[in-house]
């Protein structure tokens, strides 16, 4: 909320403006930012693409696979938590978009259907990509991962060629959708100072100046109430002639407590992500083989596409249905419709989503982390055989996973409480809180249980 920020002279730990710190202010206003991080990232991306498409065929030996799925993918939700969508500012796909746009961009307005259905499209892409990963083995197959990256590259080239700003990142990118949801739990918030913005008629932050382009994700800091579509690229900081922009540190999940205009599709995505976290965990469990056998007998087919699709659909339907049922029960107390409750309280699951996602990927990062080093060594002819890829032991990983789920559980429960408190009064607060608290606890317990079971490796 714009009213959250008013602190030119407050300590940064008390919600003060980080731009008060000269080093940060200078760095963000520098013409080298974010290029100094963006261009090396693009170079690394090119190495990854080369490895994925033309490197070793076995994921175990491929540096591209290790960097993408063992390093980057586990780190990305952690980045969202601490820095919001900053990754999107330096994302190589966005850099390619900008590069193509600079030379041949037609800068046409975003198609209306993308504006209207963008998040549903992102939801559909997210589901499709997860599904195809399992059915066609994208992660386990370097070439498959490379084709996924090439497809995304083609998407951003098409978007950058014809449409303005970062249309792809805002309305199509599945990771952008995930990032948008997760960034709401993020600890960085960028906003305009309401008193200053109220008198501003220039809108340089949105339109751009000779110093920097206008907001690449079509945000107007004057009206921003969410960091879901702010990539902390600092273009608005450079462009604002009134130094109105503030960058503050806030408690994780705080944004979720005050969603002004909740959207059904975003609430739906948060429930879908929970389902996807379930399915990612389930298919990595050692008992997955037995479950698959049972499913094959029950359905009478050994076709993995069919058996997995059934598992996938069930995993996604469970959290969505549970959220629906809970919303219906809560509606008995707060007199809101199922859709209203679903839309408003769906956001509370995001904290648990982020925790589950980080916890799941922590296994890959910590149990397979050394594979990044080994595959990089192999690139220079130094083969490492038989060495463990683990950075820490399984006990430590499991402890961290449980800790993360506990934090996510607390975050989601508190978010439910705050949303209930903001939107209801008196007994309705608890009548609304209790069913959702029960839902969050159920989802948390499922997560706990899944992390108790032994997992299989990715590399």
């Amino acid at each position: 909320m714009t009213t959250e920020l008013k602190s030119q002279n407050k300590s940064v730990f008390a919600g003060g403006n980080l731009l008060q710190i000269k080093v940060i202010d200078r760095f963000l206003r520098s013409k080298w930012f974010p290029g100094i991080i963006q261009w090396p990232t693009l170079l690394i991306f090119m190495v990854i693409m080369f490895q994925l498409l033309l490197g070793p065929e076995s994921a175990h030996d491929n540096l591209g696979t290790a960097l993408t799925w063992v390093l980057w993918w586990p780190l990305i939700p952690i980045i969202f938590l601490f820095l919001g969508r900053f990754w999107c500012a330096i994302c190589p796909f966005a850099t390619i978009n900008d590069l193509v746009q600079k030379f041949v961009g037609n800068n046409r307005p975003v198609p209306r259907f993308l504006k209207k259905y963008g998040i549903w499209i992102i939801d559909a892409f997210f589901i499709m990509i997860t599904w195809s990963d399992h059915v066609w083995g994208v992660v386990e197959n370097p070439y498959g991962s490379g084709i996924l990256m090439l497809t995304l590259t083609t998407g951003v080239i098409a978007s950058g060629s014809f449409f303005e700003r970062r249309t792809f990142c805002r309305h199509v990118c599945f990771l952008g959708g995930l990032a948008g949801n997760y960034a709401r739990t993020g600890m960085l918030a960028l906003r305009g100072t309401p008193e200053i913005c109220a008198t501003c008629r220039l809108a340089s932050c949105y339109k751009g100046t000779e110093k920097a382009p206008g907001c690449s994700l079509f945000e107007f800091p004057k009206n921003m109430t969410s960091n879901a579509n702010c990539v902390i690229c600092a273009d608005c900081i450079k462009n604002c002639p009134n130094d109105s922009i503030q960058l503050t540190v806030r408690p994780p999940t705080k944004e979720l407590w005050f969603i002004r205009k909740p959207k059904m599709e975003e609430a739906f995505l948060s429930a879908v992500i929970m389902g996807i976290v379930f399915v990612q965990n389930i298919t990595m469990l050692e008992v997955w083989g037995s479950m698959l056998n049972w499913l094959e007998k029950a359905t009478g087919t050994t076709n993995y596409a069919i058996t997995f699709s059934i598992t996938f659909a069930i995993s996604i339907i469970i959290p969505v249905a549970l959220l629906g049922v809970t919303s219906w029960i809560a509606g008995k107390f707060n007199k809101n419709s199922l859709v209203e409750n679903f839309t408003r309280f769906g956001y509370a699951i995001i904290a648990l989503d982020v925790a589950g996602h980080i916890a799941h990927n922590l296994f890959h990062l910590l149990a397979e982390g050394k594979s990044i080093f080994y595959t990089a060594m192999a690139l220079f002819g130094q083969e490492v055989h038989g060495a463990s890829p683990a950075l820490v032991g399984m006990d430590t990983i499991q402890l961290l996973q449980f800790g993360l789920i506990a934090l996510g559980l607390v975050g989601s429960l508190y978010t439910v409480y705050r949303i209930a408190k903001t939107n209801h009064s008196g007994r309705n607060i608890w009548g609304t809180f209790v069913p959702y608290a029960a839902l969050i606890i159920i989802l948390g317990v499922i997560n706990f249980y899944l992390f108790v079971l032994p997992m299989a490796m990715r590399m």
Partner: protein
Amino acid sequence: MKRFLHITLTLLTMIAIVSANPSLVLASEGDDEHALEMEVNGYHVTLDSQNDWKKGENTIVVTLMDSMGMPVQGADVEILIAAKSDDHAEPEMEPAHDAEQGHSSMPGMDMGEPAVEASDMPAHEEEATNPVSLSESEENGVYVIETQLESSGAHEMSVMFHVNGEMLQADFVVDILEVLSKAIVLWSFVAINVVLIASAGILKKQAIPVKGRQ
């Protein structure tokens, strides 16, 4: 909104159906479109590939059931794979016992002992000139081998198995699908992107300028 959801769900369903049922094989009736099935002397033989019978690495799975529908355990199972020639029936890799005994290509013919016994082939094999042994999996009656199918098109696959002292053979014809080479796929992406950029370059003069964008 509902219409969009309907279209999205329909598309997802169609993709799932297409993915689940690629018609790659001259398959017989059965639940799995990739699997070939045959009855030999009361034994039910199923031949399948976990890789959808595509050119390249395939994990071939043979399932043996007896007349009671019970899995046949502990059998010696071998497979001989030969690319089928269009103009004459001479396979490019003919097993010795076929040559000696005038092997009929009719499915389900009982065979005598093969002249060439299964060798100690490693589990990961290239397309074989001799029959290669399948190893029994943890699942009863299921035998598997990883093999490299070097060419596309019709292949003759003879599954030979020893049960109760006699050797039975099931001959299948499998159509191996040509997989697009990496080069074709990569150059296709290059071509699409070049076309996109070139088209954008040509249309740029008509584009709406956005102030501030460089």
